[in-house]
C-alpha cells in the first residue's frame, strides 16, 4: 500500500497544475460566497427583530446551515467533475498500464485516486465552512452544530466522490463517467422523495437515501448509523471500482 500516497499525491499535483481544478474551486467558492453574503445581508436586516423574539434562530440556523445545504446540492455536480478524469482519463490517455504494470494493487490504485479527488472536494467544503466561521468574530455561533454539519457534508462528499471513482472506472469517456456519477448520486440523494410525498419517512427506501442520513448532521446529531451508512456507500463504490480494475487485468 506504499504506492497509495504516491498515486494520490501524483493525482493532486496533476489536478492543480491544470486550470480545471482551480476554476472549479474558484467558481464554486464564488457562488457560495455570493449566497453567504446575501444570507448575511438578510440576517443583518432582521437581526434586531430576531433578538426581540424568544428562542429565535441565530446566525448558525440562518446563514451557516443553509450555506452547507447549498454546498451539499452543489457537491452532486462537483464530485463527478472532480472524479471524471481519475480512471476514465487514465484509460483514455493510455496511462493506466503504468500503474497496472507496476505491481500496484487494484485497491491501492482506487484508494489513491479517491484520495486525490477527495482533496478537491474537501478543500471546497473547508473553504465554505470558513465563511460562516468568520462570523464568530461578531456573533455567537453554535460551533458544535457547525462541526457536525461539516462532518456530514464531508461524509456526503466522500460518498459522492467514491461513486464518481466507480463510474470513472467503468468507462473510458470522462464526460460519460461524470454524467453517470451525477445521475447515480442524485438518484441516491432523492430516492425517497416520492415516499416522502406519500408521508412515508421511516421505510427502507428512506434509509437508502443519502439525504436521510445527511439531515441529522444539520441538526447537530452525529449518529453512528449515519456515519456507517456513508462509509458503507463509499466502501462499496470503491470496491466496485477495484473490481472493475481487476476485470481489466483478467478479462482485458
Amino acid at each position, binding site marked *: 500500500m506504499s504506492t497509495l500516497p504516491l498515486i494520490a499525491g501524483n493525482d493532486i499535483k496533476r489536478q492543480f497544475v491544470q486550470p480545471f481544478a482551480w476554476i472549479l474551486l474558484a467558481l464554486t467558492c464564488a457562488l457560495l460566497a455570493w449566497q453567504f453574503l446575501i444570507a448575511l445581508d438578510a440576517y443583518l436586516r432582521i437581526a434586531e427583530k430576531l433578538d426581540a423574539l424568544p428562542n429565535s434562530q441565530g446566525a448558525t440556523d440562518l446563514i451557516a446551515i443553509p450555506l452547507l445545504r447549498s454546498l451539499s446540492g452543489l457537491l452532486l455536480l462537483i464530485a463527478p467533475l472532480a472524479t471524471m478524469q481519475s480512471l476514465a482519463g487514465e484509460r483514455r490517455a493510455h496511462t493506466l498500464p503504468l500503474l497496472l*504494470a507496476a505491481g500496484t494493487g487494484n485497491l491501492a490504485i482506487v484508494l489513491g485516486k479517491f484520495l486525490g479527488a477527495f482533496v478537491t472536494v474537501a478543500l471546497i467544503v473547508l473553504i465554505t465552512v470558513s465563511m460562516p466561521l468568520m462570523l464568530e468574530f461578531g456573533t455567537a455561533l453554535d460551533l458544535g452544530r457547525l462541526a457536525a454539519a461539516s462532518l456530514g457534508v464531508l461524509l456526503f462528499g466522500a460518498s459522492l466522490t467514491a461513486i464518481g471513482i466507480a463510474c470513472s472506472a467503468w468507462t473510458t469517456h470522462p464526460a460519460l463517467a461524470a454524467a453517470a456519477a451525477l445521475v447515480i448520486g442524485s438518484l441516491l440523494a432523492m430516492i425517497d422523495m416520492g415516499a416522502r410525498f406519500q408521508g412515508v419517512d421511516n421505510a427502507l427506501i428512506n434509509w437508502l437515501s443519502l439525504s436521510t442520513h445527511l439531515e441529522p448532521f444539520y441538526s447537530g446529531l452525529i449518529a453512528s448509523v449515519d456515519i456507517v451508512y456513508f462509509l458503507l456507500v463509499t466502501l462499496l463504490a470503491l470496491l466496485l471500482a477495484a473490481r472493475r480494475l481487476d476485470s481489466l487485468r483478467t478479462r482485458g
Partner: protein
Amino acid sequence: MLHPDENRDPVTLLLFNLYSKSPPFGGFFFGKPASSQAPRRAMHEEATVDPALALAGLSRNNPRRMNESSPVLSLARVSRQLSGRVIVEELDLTLARGEVLGLLGVNGAGKSTTLRMMSGMLAPSSGAVLLGGDDLYENPQRARRDIGYLPEEPPLYGELNVEEYLRFCARLHGIDRHAVKPAVEKAIERCELGEMRQRLTSLLSKGFRQRVGLAQAIVHEPALIVLDEPASGLDPIQALRLRELIRTLAKDHAVVLSTHVLSDVLACCDRVAILHQGRLRHSAVLSEIDADSALRVHIERDVDNDAWMRMPMVASAQIIDTRRWRIRLRDGVSVSELAKAINDCSFGLLELRADGNALEDIFVRIATQPDTPEAAA
C-alpha cells in the same frame, strides 16, 4: 505442445535438439500447464509437480529466486482469450538475463497481448508467467521492481515535465526516495533527454515521447524490460540509437521487444520468436538462422519440387516465386556440386547465392500460410 517426432523443418529440429539438451533453462517448457493457483482463472490444477516447473527446477511452493543463471522470464503454456476469442494459445517461452528476444508477428498476431501478460498487466486465461521462478500474478510486487514495460502507446502524464514524470515512475517502481535523483539522471542520460527534462511531456514530439516512455521502463533498472514497438515513431537516427541502447541494456537485463520490423530484430536481438494467429510458429537463435542459411537459386525453367528432390545433394527445396527457389543442401555437399547438377538438368541457372534473408523468408512463409504451424524450438 510440439514433440521431437513431429514434422519440423531442419532449422527447427536443430534448434529443438540444441535447446532440449541445454539444462536446466536452455529451452522451452515441454510440460503441462504451470497454471496459477488464483481461483479466478480457469486452471488445470495437477496434484503432482508441474512438469513445466519441474523442468525449470522450480516448485510453486518453493520457487527459486532469480539469479544469474536462471531464466528471468518463463511462460509456460500461456493462453489468453479476450471476448471469447483466443488471442494467445499455449505459448512457451523463456528468457535469460543478457538476452534480447524479438517477438515478431503481423498485426493482430498476439504480440501486444503477450507483452501485456509478460509485464504483469494482464492475467493469462491459463498457464503461468514466471518471473525469476515466481508466478507473476501471485507475487505482483515482483513486477514493481523487476519489470519495466513500455506499452505501444507511451504512458505519459501530459501535465508533468519529463523529470517530474520520471521521478514519479521511479518512486512507483519502488526506488528509495534518496536514490530517485541518480536513477532519474541515469535514465535521462541513457535516453538522451537532457535538453527536454523541463519540457511538459504533452509538448514532446512522437520520438521524444517514445524515449521518455523507454526511460520510465528502465529508470528502476529492472531485470526484465518489455518493449512494445519501441522504434515506432522514431526517425532513422533515433532508431539506430535505440538499437544501441537496447544492446547496452541487454548486458545487464533481459529484454523482450515486439516489432514487425525485421531489421530491428536482426540488429539487436539474440533470439526471435514468431507469433502468428496467437501461436508460436517459430523460435530460433538468430546466429543459428544465419548459419543455417540456405541457397537462393534463380533458374530459367519452371520445375517442380520433385525435380529438385531427385538431386542427391538437395535436402529440401522451397519455392519463393515461380522460378526462384530456396535450396538447402545435405551435409558435406559443396555449392559447386549443386551448380553442376543444375546445369546437368538444364534448369538454366541464372543466379546462385547464399540466402541472406532467411529470417524474412521464414516470417513471410509463416505469415502467408496461416494454417501450417511451424515447429517451435
